[in-house]
C-alpha cells in the first residue's frame, strides 16, 4: 500500500507540522502495556459463559461440577450476583442491560452473558466456563430483519429526530421530470478492534480501581458508580493504551462482571473477551434497509428528497442507526422527508460504530445521487454543485463553513475526473472492466465540555493532565502539539498524561469530538497558565497548575450547522469472469477543520477510507435464522480488507478552520469512511453498467447481476 498526503493548511506554531506519535517507540518495542497486559499480584481470571439459546429463561446453572474443577474460585450468575442499579441516564442515555450482567433469568439473544467463572488462571477459567451446563426454557425467536416489518416504529434514538418533513412529497415527485426510487441495504457489521476488550478490577484502599481499555475513563467511572451505587470519587479507571475502539469500548459486560467478582472475592479479577464473544457483547452496526426517493427537474435540481431508513435493535435496549440524518445536511428540496425507523428483534443490541448513521446513510443517498446524475445526463459532481444548499435543509440555520465543493474541485483535479467518459462499461483492460466513481461525505462537528489541568514544572517543562483517550488515533500526540503551541514552547517540553479518570471529567474519544473537546480545554488551561507565569516569580517544587472547564464557552456557542465535509473518489476493476471487484486507487479530499498533525490525520482519513473499501466489498456478519447466532464469528468468517485490497489510497484536505473553535478544529475521526462505499459502488456501476444497491459487493452478486458479467 502506498499513501500520500497533501494539504493547504498553513503551517503555524507546533501544529500543522507532521509529528510522529509520542508513544510510538513504546508501542513498536512492545513496552506499551495494554489493559490485559498489566500485572497484578493475586490476580484471578474471569471467563464469561454466554447463552446458547436465542430467547427464553435460564432454568438452572449447574455450578457444582464446575466449582470442583481445578483452580475454580467462583461462579457468578443471576442467582448469586451482586445487584446493580440500571435506573439512571448516562452520557449516552439509559444503560444497555447487556452490560448489567446477571440480574435476572431472561435470555434476550444468543450470546447473552449468563455466568462468569473465576479461576486462578485464564485457562482454568475458560475450560470451566465452557464446561458449565446451563439449562434453558427455550422460546421461539424472531430475528428476521426486512423492510416490510409491520412492527417497526419511528425513532431517532437519543441523538436525533425520528421524522423530519416539509413540503408535499408526492406532489413534487409527480411534478418531477426525473425520479429515482430505490431500496439500498447494508449488512450487520462489527467493529473488531485489534485489541479485544479487557478489564481488571480491584478494591484498593476503599476505592474501586479498574484497569481498562476504553474510549473515556470518566465515562466508565460514571457508569460503574451508578451501576454499583458508589460515589464517583471512590472509583478510578485507567486506560493508558487502547488498540482500537470505533464506538465499541464503553461500559460492557466484562468490566461489570470483573467488578462483581473483585467485590465478591476481594481480590483483583481480570476479564478478557475473545474475538468470538465480541460479536455478541460489544455492540455492532445494525443492518439497514433504506428507501430513497429523489425527484428532480431535467437540469438535476431536486424537487423532492425522501430518505427512509430501517434498522434493528434488541428487545432490551433501543439503539437506532439513524441513517436518514445525512440527508438533513447534504441536500435541500422543496419537499424533504427523512425518517429513521427501528424494529426490535431477538438480537444483541447494536451501538455506535464509526460514523454511526452517516456511513450506511451516505451509501444509500450518494448512490441515489449517482443514479440521478445518470438519469439526468449530468456529471455527478455538477449535480451535487447544483444542489449545494445555502443553509441547513431542515434547520434553516447557516453553515459555520461548508467547503464541500472545494473538496470536489480539488479532488477532481487530482483524480483526473475531467478525462472520464461518463458512459458505463467503456473501459476494458484484458478481462477486467474499469470504472470510476465519486461521492460526498459529511459528519457533524461538535464539542462537549471538558476539564484539563496544565502544570508548569519547576524544571521548566510542562505537564498536561486530561482524561482523554488515545484509541490509536494519535490523540496524545495531537494534544502535545496543541499544548506546545498554546504554551509557545517546544513539543519536547510538554508531557501529556491521559487515560486516568482522576484527571477529571472530559469528553470521550467518540463522535469525532475527542480532539476538539480536549484541545479546547487544554488550550484554555494553557492560556491561563501563561497569564499566571507572565506575572513572574519562581516556580515552587510542586509547580504551578492552571485548570480549565469549557462548559461555559461551549454552552455559549451559537446554534449553527457545523460539519466536516469531503469528496471521495474511487477507481475499481471488475473481473467479468469471476465477479471479483478490486479497488485500484482512492482519493479523499476533506474540509474538516484545522489539521493538527498531518501525519496522524492522514492515518485517520486513510484508515476510514480503507474501512470504506471493507464496507463496500467485504464486511458482512451473517446471522443464522434458525439458531439466531452469527455464523463464522471470527476473522476467517468475517472479512475485513487485507493489505492486498488496499493498493493506493490518498488523502488530502482543503483549508477549513472552524471559526468558533480556539484551535480551529472540527474533528476527523469518522468522515474518512463516509461516502467511501458509495464512491466504490458508483465506480462498479461505471465499470459494468450494473447498480449494486446491497453491500457488500461480493463476487457472487456481481457474477449474477446481469449485463456484462454473464457466463463467458
Amino acid at each position: 500500500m502506498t499513501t500520500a498526503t497533501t494539504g493547504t493548511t498553513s503551517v503555524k506554531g507546533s501544529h500543522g507540522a507532521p509529528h510522529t506519535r509520542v508513544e510510538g517507540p513504546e508501542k513498536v518495542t512492545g513496552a506499551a502495556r495494554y489493559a490485559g497486559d498489566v500485572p497484578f499480584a493475586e490476580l484471578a481470571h474471569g471467563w464469561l459463559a454466554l447463552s446458547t439459546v436465542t430467547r427464553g429463561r435460564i432454568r438452572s446453572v449447574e455450578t457444582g461440577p464446575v466449582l470442583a474443577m481445578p483452580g475454580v474460585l467462583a461462579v457468578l450468575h443471576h442467582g448469586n450476583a451482586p445487584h446493580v442499579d440500571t435506573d439512571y441516564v448516562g452520557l449516552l442515555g439509559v444503560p444497555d442491560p447487556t452490560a448489567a450482567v446477571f440480574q435476572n433469568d431472561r435470555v434476550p439473544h444468543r450470546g447473552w452473558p449468563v455466568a462468569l467463572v473465576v479461576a486462578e488462571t485464564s485457562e482454568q477459567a475458560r475450560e470451566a466456563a465452557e464446561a458449565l451446563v446451563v439449562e434453558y426454557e427455550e422460546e421461539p425467536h424472531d430475528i428476521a430483519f426486512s423492510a416490510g416489518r409491520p412492527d417497526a416504529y419511528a425513532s431517532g434514538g437519543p441523538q436525533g429526530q425520528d421524522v423530519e418533513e416539509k413540503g408535499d412529497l408526492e406532489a413534487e415527485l409527480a411534478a418531477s421530470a426525473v425520479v429515482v426510487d430505490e431500496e439500498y441495504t447494508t449488512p450487520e457489521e462489527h467493529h473488531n478492534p485489534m485489541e479485544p476488550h479487557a478489564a481488571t478490577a480491584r478494591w484498593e484502599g476503599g476505592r474501586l480501581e479498574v484497569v481498562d481499555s476504553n474510549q473515556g475513563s470518566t465515562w466508565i467511572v460514571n457508569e460503574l458508580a451508578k451501576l454499583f451505587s458508589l460515589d464517583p470519587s471512590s472509583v478510578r479507571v485507567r486506560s493508558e493504551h487502547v488498540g482500537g475502539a470505533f464506538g465499541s469500548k464503553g461500559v460492557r459486560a466484562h468490566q461489570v462482571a470483573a467488578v462483581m467478582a473483585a467485590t465478591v472475592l476481594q481480590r483483583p479479577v481480570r476479564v478478557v473477551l475473545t474475538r468470538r464473544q465480541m460479536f455478541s457483547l460489544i455492540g455492532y452496526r445494525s443492518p439497514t434497509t433504506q428507501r430513497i426517493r429523489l425527484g428532480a427537474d431535467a437540469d438535476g435540481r431536486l424537487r423532492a428528497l425522501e430518505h427512509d431508513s430501517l434498522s434493528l435493535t434488541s428487545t432490551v435496549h433501543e439503539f437506532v442507526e439513524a441513517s436518514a440524518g445525512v440527508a438533513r445536511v447534504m441536500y435541500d428540496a422543496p419537499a424533504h422527508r427523512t425518517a429513521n425507523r427501528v424494529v426490535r428483534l431477538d438480537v444483541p443490541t447494536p451501538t455506535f460504530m464509526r460514523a454511526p448513521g452517516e456511513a450506511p446513510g451516505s451509501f444509500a443517498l450518494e448512490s441515489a445521487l449517482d443514479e440521478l446524475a445518470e438519469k439526468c445526463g449530468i456529471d455527478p459532481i455538477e449535480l451535487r454543485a447544483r444542489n449545494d444548499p445555502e443553509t441547513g435543509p431542515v434547520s434553516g440555520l447557516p453553515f459555520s463553513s461548508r467547503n464541500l465543493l472545494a473538496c470536489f474541485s480539488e479532488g477532481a483535479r487530482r483524480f483526473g475526473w475531467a478525462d472520464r467518459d461518463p458512459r458505463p462499461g467503456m473501459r476494458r483492460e484484458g478481462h477486467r472492466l474499469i470504472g470510476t466513481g465519486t461521492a460526498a461525505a459529511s459528519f457533524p462537528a461538535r464539542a462537549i465540555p471538558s476539564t484539563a489541568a496544565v502544570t508548569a514544572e519547576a524544571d521548566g517543562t510542562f505537564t498536561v493532565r486530561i482524561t482523554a483517550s488515545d484509541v490509536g488515533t494519535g490523540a496524545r500526540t495531537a494534544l502535545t502539539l496543541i499544548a506546545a503551541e498554546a504554551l509557545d514552547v517546544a513539543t519536547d517540553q510538554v508531557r501529556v498524561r491521559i487515560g486516568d479518570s482522576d484527571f477529571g471529567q472530559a469528553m470521550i474519544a467518540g463522535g469525532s469530538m475527542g480532539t476538539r473537546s480536549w484541545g479546547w480545554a487544554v488550550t484554555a488551561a494553557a492560556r491561563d497558565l501563561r497569564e499566571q507565569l507572565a506575572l513572574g516569580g519562581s516556580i515552587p517544587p510542586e509547580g504551578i497548575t492552571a485548570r480549565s472547564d469549557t462548559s461555559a464557552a461551549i454552552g455559549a456557542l451559537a446554534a449553527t450547522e457545523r460539519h466536516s465535509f469531503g469528496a471521495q473518489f474511487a477507481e475499481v476493476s471488475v473481473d467479468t469472469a469471476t465477479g471479483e471487484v478490486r479497488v485500484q486507487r482512492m482519493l479523499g479530499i476533506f474540509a474538516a477543520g484545522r489539521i493538527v498533525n498531518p501525519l496522524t490525520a492522514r492515518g485517520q482519513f486513510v484508515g476510514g477510507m480503507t474501512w470504506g473499501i471493507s464496507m463496500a466489498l467485504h464486511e458482512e456478519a451473517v446471522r443464522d435464522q434458525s439458531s439466531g447466532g452469527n455464523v463464522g464469528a471470527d476473522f476467517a468468517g468475517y472479512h475485513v480488507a487485507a493489505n492486498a485490497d488496499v493498493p493506493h489510497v490518498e488523502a488530502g484536505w482543503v483549508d477549513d478552520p472552524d471559526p468558533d473553535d480556539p484551535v480551529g478544529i472540527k474533528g476527523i475521526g469518522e468522515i474518512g469512511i463516509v461516502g467511501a462505499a458509495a464512491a466504490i459502488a458508483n465506480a462498479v456501476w461505471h465499470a459494468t453498467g450494473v447498480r449494486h444497491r446491497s453491500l457488500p459487493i461480493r463476487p457472487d452478486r456481481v457474477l449474477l447481476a446481469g449485463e456484462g458479467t454473464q457466463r463467458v
Partner: protein
Amino acid sequence: MREFGYQRAVDVSGAVAQLGADPEARFLGGGTNLVDLMKIGVERPAQLVDISGLPLGQIESTEGGGLRIGATVTNSDLAAHPEVRRRYPALAQAVLAGASGQLRNMATVGGNLLQRTRCGYFTDVTQPCNKRAPGSGCPAIEGEHRNHAILGASEHCVAVHPSDMGVALAAFDAVVSYETADGPEGATSGGELPIADFYRPVGDTPHLETALPPGALITGVTLPPAPVSARSRYRKVRERASYAFAIGSVAAALDVRDGAVHDVRLAFGAVASRPWRAREAERALIGAPADADTFAAAADAELAAAQPLPENGYKVTLMHNLVVAVLTELREETAR
C-alpha cells in the same frame, strides 16, 4: 482449553508408537489448524505428539522426473522449491494463494492435507454439525451455505475442503505415503493412497474424512512425472485479495498440439468435501480442438453433476467461467 500432554517425536516409528491407538491423541505439525481448533473446543486431544522434528523435511527428485515431498516440509519451502516451481508451477501457485506468509512458514504438507473445513457451523461448538458431532444434523443445508459444496455432497454434510495445495495435488495424481503400526513392539509398516482415494466420499459419515488407517502418520507425498504439469496454473477466486479461503479455484495443466488438446489435468477447489478432480471435463477435452467452445463444453460436462443449494448456485457459473478462463490462458501460453 482442555489440558493436554505433549511429547516430541524423534523418528517415524517412535511417533506412530507414541500416538498408539489412543483416539484422544493427535499428531502436531505446524499447528496452524489444530491449535486453533483446540482453542475453540472443536478438537480436544488429551495428547499431542509433535512431529515437526521428524526427518521428513526433504524434497527429492524421483527416478523418471517426479518429486517426493516430505510430510513436514513447510508450505513456504514447498512453494519456493525450484523443482516444484519448474515441474509443477500450479502447486507452487496454489500454496502461495493460501493463508499468509506467517502461516505458510509453519504449516506442513501433511497438515495441509488433513486440515478441517472452515464451515462456520463446524467451528462453533454450540451448533449442530454432523462432521464434529455425528448425528447432530447439518444446519448449513437450511442455513448459511454460500461457500458450501455443489459437487459430491450429501444430505449429511455440504462442507468444502479448504486446501489450495490439495487441488494442485489432485490435478497431478499425487500419492500419499503413510506409516502405521504393524504388530506389537512398536513395529510399523508403510502404505500408500492415491490422492483420488485419500479422501472418503461424504455419504452418511462426514466425520470420517480420509482413508488413512487409524493412528497412521503421513510421511510424504509423491508427484509422478507428467510433462504436462510443467505448463500449469492455479487460479483462486476469493472474497478479498488475500488471506481468504477460496469460493472457487482451478488447478489446470494443458498441452496443445496441432490445435488440439493432447493432454490435460483439471481439478477444482472449494466445490466439494475434497479437492475435486474434474475427470468428466478432462475426457471431454482430450483430442478436441483447444478452443473456447471445447473448454465451455468440458466445464459443463463436469458441472452437469452439480447440485447447488439455494444460495450457492453462483458457483456453477463461477467454475464454468474459471475453467474457460484458465484453459484459455494456458492455450495462449502454449501458442507463444
